[in-house]
């Protein structure tokens, strides 16, 4: 008999439809927004039944795994640091956000600090993390401001928008079953089984386009203005929630033609100074490092070595004490 639909094909359709319904019915809450490319409001924040929050690598948001209580413990000074790969560092323990707590505890302050840095995040995506971080009762938030990730922010924003569009390119991933499977495979296999050196060669790169854009002065001005606007919005967010915010301005360590090293704040100090006001504080990395033999503290132009993170942690703690913030535990 010339049957158009065969039993195995029908079974396949039923299994796929059934699985989709089950996933939508029982696992939809776990969706962590891989296809929002860092623009999902909660990706990477998992609120557990026991009242704790886990920071996980999910949804294009590669947090270092950390866990803390949703409510700030009474009498504890909680510092949450938001930013890009510079504050993120090589690990929580080796980064300045991770070292702040230890330095405060050494001063007799019951403190905890968490690293919410995500490599490649610019002002726009940092703001989304900051918004969520404010839910967890920080005593102070540290916003590390850099202006070198705006290309990436923009590109990922376009990707996120495109995913929400009608484009057939994204139809397959509209299935929650496929979406979850893809996400699980990426997070649990691709990231965990393959070393970074292997992954990076398998990833599509648009480095050339990024370099080209970063040499366009008009583009740079446009990016700087965007950083200013998003930082202003982040400051307003923290103010609204009554949480003090410390703005840290990134600096770069550049070598000139004669081989001398110099610090360059890329105009960030000038950009952030006007924000200083009630509940808003400012720390310039350039000022922190210029008094020292700074070149050995940098691993490259922007990223810090262990000693650099140590120096930054000291500077942040000093600033908190100077502004009497660390007493508020």
């Amino acid at each position, binding site marked *: 008999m010339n049957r158009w639909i065969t039993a195995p094909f029908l079974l*396949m359709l039923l299994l796929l439809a059934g699985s989709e319904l089950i996933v939508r019915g029982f696992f939809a809450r776990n969706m962590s927004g891989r296809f929002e490319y860092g623009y999902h409001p909660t990706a990477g924040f998992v609120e557990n039944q026991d009242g704790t929050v886990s920071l996980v690598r999910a949804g294009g948001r590669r947090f270092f795994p950390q866990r803390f209580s949703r409510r700030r413990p009474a009498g504890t000074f909680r510092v949450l640091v938001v930013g890009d790969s510079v504050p993120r560092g090589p690990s929580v323990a080796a980064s300045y956000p991770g070292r702040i707590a230890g330095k405060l505890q050494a001063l007799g302050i019951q403190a905890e600090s968490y690293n919410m840095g995500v490599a490649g995040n610019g002002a726009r995506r940092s703001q989304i993390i900051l918004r969520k971080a404010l839910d967890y009762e920080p005593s102070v938030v540290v916003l590390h401001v850099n202006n070198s990730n705006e290309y990436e922010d923009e590109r990922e924003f376009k990707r996120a928008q495109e995913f929400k569009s009608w484009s057939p390119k994204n139809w397959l991933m509209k299935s929650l079953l496929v979406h979850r499977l*893809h996400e699980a495979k990426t997070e649990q296999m691709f990231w965990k089984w393959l070393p970074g050196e292997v992954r990076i060669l398998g990833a599509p790169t648009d480095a050339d386009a990024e370099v080209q854009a970063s040499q366009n002065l008009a583009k740079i001005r446009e990016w700087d203005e965007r950083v200013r606007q998003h930082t202003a919005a982040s400051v307003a967010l923290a103010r609204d929630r009554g949480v003090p915010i410390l703005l840290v301005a990134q600096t770069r360590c550049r070598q000139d033609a004669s081989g001398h090293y110099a610090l360059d704040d890329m105009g960030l100090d000038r950009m952030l100074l006007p924000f200083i006001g009630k509940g808003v504080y400012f720390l310039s990395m350039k000022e922190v490092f210029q008094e020292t033999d700074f070149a050995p503290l940098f691993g490259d132009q922007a990223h810090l070595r262990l000693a650099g993170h140590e120096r930054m942690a000291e500077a942040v703690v000093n600033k908190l004490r100077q502004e009497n913030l660390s007493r508020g535990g």
Partner: protein
Amino acid sequence: MSFVSWQYALFLPALLLAYWRLPWRGRILLLVTGSYFFYGMWDPRFLALLLTTTVVDYFNALAIAGRRAPSARIFGIASLPLVWLTACLATGSGHSGSTKWAVTAAAFFPIVYASAYQLLWGLPVRKQRRSFLLFSIMSNLAVLCFFKYFNFFGGSLTLLLDHLGWDPGWTLPHIILPVGISFYTFQSISYAVDVYRNTAKPADDFFTFAAFVSFFPQLVAGPIERCHDLLPQLQKPAVLEAAHLHRGLRLILVGLFKKVFVADNCAVLANFAFDAKTPLNGQWALLGVLAFAFQIYGDFSGYTDIARGSARLLGIHLNSNFRFPYFASNPADFWRRWHQTLSAWFRDYVYIPLGGNRHGTSISIRNVWITMLLAGLWHGANWTYVLWGGYHAMLLTLFRVLPALDQLGETRLNSRGRQTVGVMLMFALSLVGWAIFRSKDMAELGRWFTAFGNWSASATVDWVKPFGWWLAHAGPLLLLQAATWKARDEVEFAHFSWPFRGLVYTLLFLLAASSAVNDVEFIYFQF
């Protein structure tokens, strides 16, 4: 347009809906239009080249069969590439400099071709057929050599002269390689030769022949079809049957699984191992080539399955290209299982015309070497491909002159254990071949070989978990092969119960879907 793009996912169903509603003539016109659209998505300018090949082989094949076309008709049809390129230029498609150059060439083409055609008809009758055949072969080879090998041989010559201390002072133009040129030129050559040998009849209708040359499922990476297989299927209307739908969808599903799940994920490891900056040790050299073996197999056989599936949905059967190649027990067996249509092409149009194995062992071995070196060069304009062809020629020679090696795989003569040893030996030998094939140059190949002298785990990144990654992606393919082994076909497992088959289809779909995000081009498009 790639088979794994969303554009194709819309293109194929739309074309199918129209195709099955049209009468025969309409279907042919739709196939030609659809195929040209499919190909033009890469670069519309190269449709003029495809059209030129089509024009030459159409009229030449008719001439070989003794049928002379009127000059006005030849001139009219030969003007089509010019019309197309002018339209490209007018609409701003492509780079204007090279397009203008191509327009000039296309402007001369009708005059030159029509004149040459009339000139050959003026030859004595006994020379006419042979002349038209040579004209057809030479024009196809000229197109292939210019676009594929000009930079390669020009660059090699420049390098040689440079080594000899003489600066030639020329700058070679960068010539873009049209997608699939090796496939459609070979198909066109076989058409002219088959008509000459009287094993096939020439196509009467220009559009049917255009559909034969440009048939989109197999246009860019084969299978390389013979005219006596494909042309008759195009010349009569196919009947819509449920079997076409079932078989076509099965082929497409398995093809997507092979490409998206197996090949693209194995590529991550192969790209790392064969990157010049990667510090290699023995473990990674082995893992890299294992990954590449499954990448290229999944990529190419996946492409072929989708091509055959798409054609089958149109009611057209295309030949298979793969039959469990990594279970071959000797080099000859490998080439009967790997890229079968290309192997058959080289056998029928190069190896046998050279004398095949009819004139003793030494002549036969010479013919093997010529054939394999050409087959290697066919894969790409790089000395590593030539070396790869030479390596396989050496294996074929060794297995011929050392019978003990060949008998390892003789199932009827030997135990299952000896068969297994033969398969394992051939797989190991084919891995060495893939290392040659994958290396960009001799330095990279040397780096791969020397890595086997260093088994220190600390020499590079961890290999254990990446090995798990490879196993997780190659393993399901091997399981699928075990399931389809009995049917001696890579996509059929009808002997299993229907619930099992339904479950397998579901798993194949989900495995492919879980990897389907990046658009990774098929490897064989570059050949």
